[in-house]
């Protein structure tokens, strides 16, 4: 149920972020439903596939989408999915997303275009540096709960300082993983700066729609995790309606923050992003230290 909810509203959140950005820049901008229109348009378009490609190129979007959906299935939204703890735990989410990324990176190399290779190389580079930071913040949050079981971590409990620090670290990871501005830029198609967009350059039609949908879902996964870290369950006290309300407000706040950040800072050079991720690693480590100290 909630997974479906995530899948359905995922493009909307991207639309909201774009709207916020445009409004901050004093522009009118596209409507918040634009991502849906894009998806529908792509869905109806003819597909062009490079003649150099193999079946890897064909299956990669499906694997990418499946991994994003599985990650969404594990992610707690306003209640934890009751079967999620049966499938896996918090750590699994990182590995599942890596599965989709692995195939997308391969598919990017498949067409033989230098842009694809560039994007694939950079994406693997950034994500391999983002993952340690992510695991540290996941560890810190899990240490506070005493388990990596998602149902328990996001159950009702008091918010701890270390969780907050870990949450900030995870925000930085999320910015890198969802290709947002200081690290990557979703809007650009300038050859030398794009990362994620370079990987999907050869795709068109329905396959491109699946890839876009999976990046919307991936973004929702990260946002939901962050919202749930910052807002320990209000559900238990206020009931499900209150929970849903809090969740939506939380997502909105994060979208606004991300939009604001995107407008106010410039994109970093690729090797400056290393420092950015190193900072998030240090934040994660700080969260662990604080958590071990008991706060």
């Amino acid at each position: 149920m909630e997974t479906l909810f995530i899948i359905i509203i995922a493009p909307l959140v991207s639309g909201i972020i774009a709207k916020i950005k445009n409004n901050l820049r004093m522009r009118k901008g596209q409507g918040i439903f634009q991502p849906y229109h894009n998806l529908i348009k792509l869905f109806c378009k003819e597909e062009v596939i490079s003649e150099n490609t193999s079946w890897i190129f064909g299956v990669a979007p499906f694997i990418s989408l499946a991994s994003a959906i599985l990650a969404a299935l594990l992610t707690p939204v306003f209640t934890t999915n009751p079967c999620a703890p049966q499938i896996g735990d918090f750590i699994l989410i990182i590995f599942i997303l890596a599965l989709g990324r692995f195939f997308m990176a391969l598919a990017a190399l498949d067409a033989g275009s230098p842009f694809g290779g560039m994007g694939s190389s950079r994406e693997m580079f950034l994500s391999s540096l983002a993952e340690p930071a992510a695991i540290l913040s996941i560890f810190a949050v899990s240490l506070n709960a005493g388990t990596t079981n998602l149902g328990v971590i996001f159950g009702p409990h008091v918010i701890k300082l270390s969780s907050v620090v870990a949450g900030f670290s995870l925000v930085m990871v999320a910015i890198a993983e969802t290709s947002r501005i200081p690290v990557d830029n979703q809007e650009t198609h300038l050859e030398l700066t794009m990362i994620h967009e370079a990987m999907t350059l050869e795709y068109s039609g329905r396959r491109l729609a699946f890839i876009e949908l999976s990046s919307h879902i991936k973004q929702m996964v990260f946002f939901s995790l962050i919202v749930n870290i910052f807002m320990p369950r209000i559900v238990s006290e206020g009931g499900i309606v209150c929970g849903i309300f809090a969740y939506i407000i939380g997502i909105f706040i994060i979208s606004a923050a991300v939009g604001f950040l995107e407008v106010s800072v410039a994109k970093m050079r690729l090797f400056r992003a290393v420092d950015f991720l190193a900072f998030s690693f240090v934040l994660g480590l700080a969260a662990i230290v604080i958590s071990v100290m008991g706060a």
Partner: protein
Amino acid sequence: MENFFNTSLSFLFDPLSILFLSVIFAVCLPSAVYSIGYLNKRYSKGKIIYNWFLLSIFAASMALVVSVRNAFMFLIAWEAMSLASYFLVIFDSKEERSVNAGMIYLIMTHVGTAFITAGFLIMYKYANSFDFLALKDACVLMPSGAKDAAFLFLLAGFGVKSGIVPLHVWLPYAHPQAPSHISGIMSGVMIKTGIYGIIRFIIFILGVDSVWWGVLVLVLACVSCLVGVIYALMEHDIKKLLAYHSVENIGIILLGTGCSMVFLKLNMPGLAVFSLIAGLYHLINHAVFKCLLFLCAGGVYSATGTKDIEKLGGLIKKMPVTAFSFLIGAMAISALPPLNGFVSEWLTLQAFFVASLTGYMAGLKIFFSLCAATLVLTGGLACACFVKAFGMIFLAMPRSEKIEGAREASFSMKTAMLFLVALVFALGLGAGIIFKLLEVVAYSAAGINSGAVNISLRNLAAMPGAVNSVSLSTPLIAVILVAVIAGVYFGFRPRQARKYNTWDCGYYKLEPRNEYTATGFSKPFRVAFNFFLMPYKKTEKLRKSFYYVKSFKYETFTTPVFKKYIYYPLIEGILRAAKFMRRLQPGSIHVYISYIFVTMLLLIIFMNKF
């Protein structure tokens, strides 16, 4: 003294030995089948018989190493294994590189054996016997100084064989030079005998004496992981790349083992058993997928005649089975769910998590978290490395004409590869069963009564300190993934697609020369890790005149840190010492007679005194 001669060939078939025997069997069998197709037509008949002869000695000696119950016999089997593998490394003895690699291997492995012998002699001094169980009993009473010494000797000795950084230098030379099925066995199981030695002699017989033992192993393991994978990223020779990944994976196995050592000392048997299971699980997994990858690499090599991935490309269309097998192997080694490498890395991470939850002191807890971060970083880099390897070898356009004549591997080679692919799936999806079996092994290896602690994959609740159970179900993950992929594919199957050129910015038609190269792919990593790799470049301009550069050559290199700062100075020192010692040999018979006289005199004094 009597034990040197009275050693009988007796065996110890405890669960640990049986585990290793089955791993050896599971890897040697497909490799042998593979060698039928691999050697055929490439080598003369005599060479092929020679291969079978050496291969059987190699396999038998490995089986002996893990099953004898006597340290003296262990050393004999160990030597036999080293020598058999040496002759296999120089199998292509016409190539100078093979001989050099063999030499490095021979020297390193004997240095290792010397360390092991020293460790055994220390234990022998207290036990007066070479029997494992007698040694185990004696080790309880050993003073801790002697224990520490024995530990360091054994760790160094077995570390050479398993390729722990900085003792790994032989590995990237020796493994790639051997024929591919031998590389598979060497990387798959031979280096694991070093791990067997560590578990058997350090954990089982010697018994962990202080916490720093485990911490030392963990630090070495983290360093091995990172160094192995970073070098692998820089490497463009496919077999060398895989060899460096062996260094990395030995590190991951040792992460589990080292964690278990810490907990044995801290008297937390449940955690110790759990982390040992994680280590052993990765050991089996690595044996299977690394052998698989080497066999695929061998297939590529025999089809194209090159191991340089910069010259390959587009092979997925010509060798679909090899490509599929390599893809599965690459996914497994990159720890992608739901395959086997993921399960063992998840278990190791869980071990670290519970370790940082219940660790003894704050420093140790933070240390464990950092180990986990190292493991994840390693996983991410390995993932990148295999995207590079698979992409460059199998995808896009062929990068040289060597691909033209490439044909799919022969039947026996395909059979061997697909068998290992099936094992990868079985070990990933049957994680629950494997875990149960490994539990038995880990209990007996750690010397804990089974049932003392209750753990299982579905129920980690009994883990000391953990509040709630955590579970992981690889079959469920697989089912969901397959269901979603199939559902989306058949539900919204894309309409007929048009085939067209890759987008070339409206320029000329793209050529293979425009493709991204492996060097380009690894450039960000080279820049980010430049403090360790210390890259440098050479440019060479061929000029016709000052203004007209005819051709331009550009090469990048990385500094081999360990060779430059550890091994070369060491070798230089040894040579210098040898030069100095040469003065002892003036060539005059009188001097030699006086040496004999002095030696006799000293010996008589020595015998009288002690």
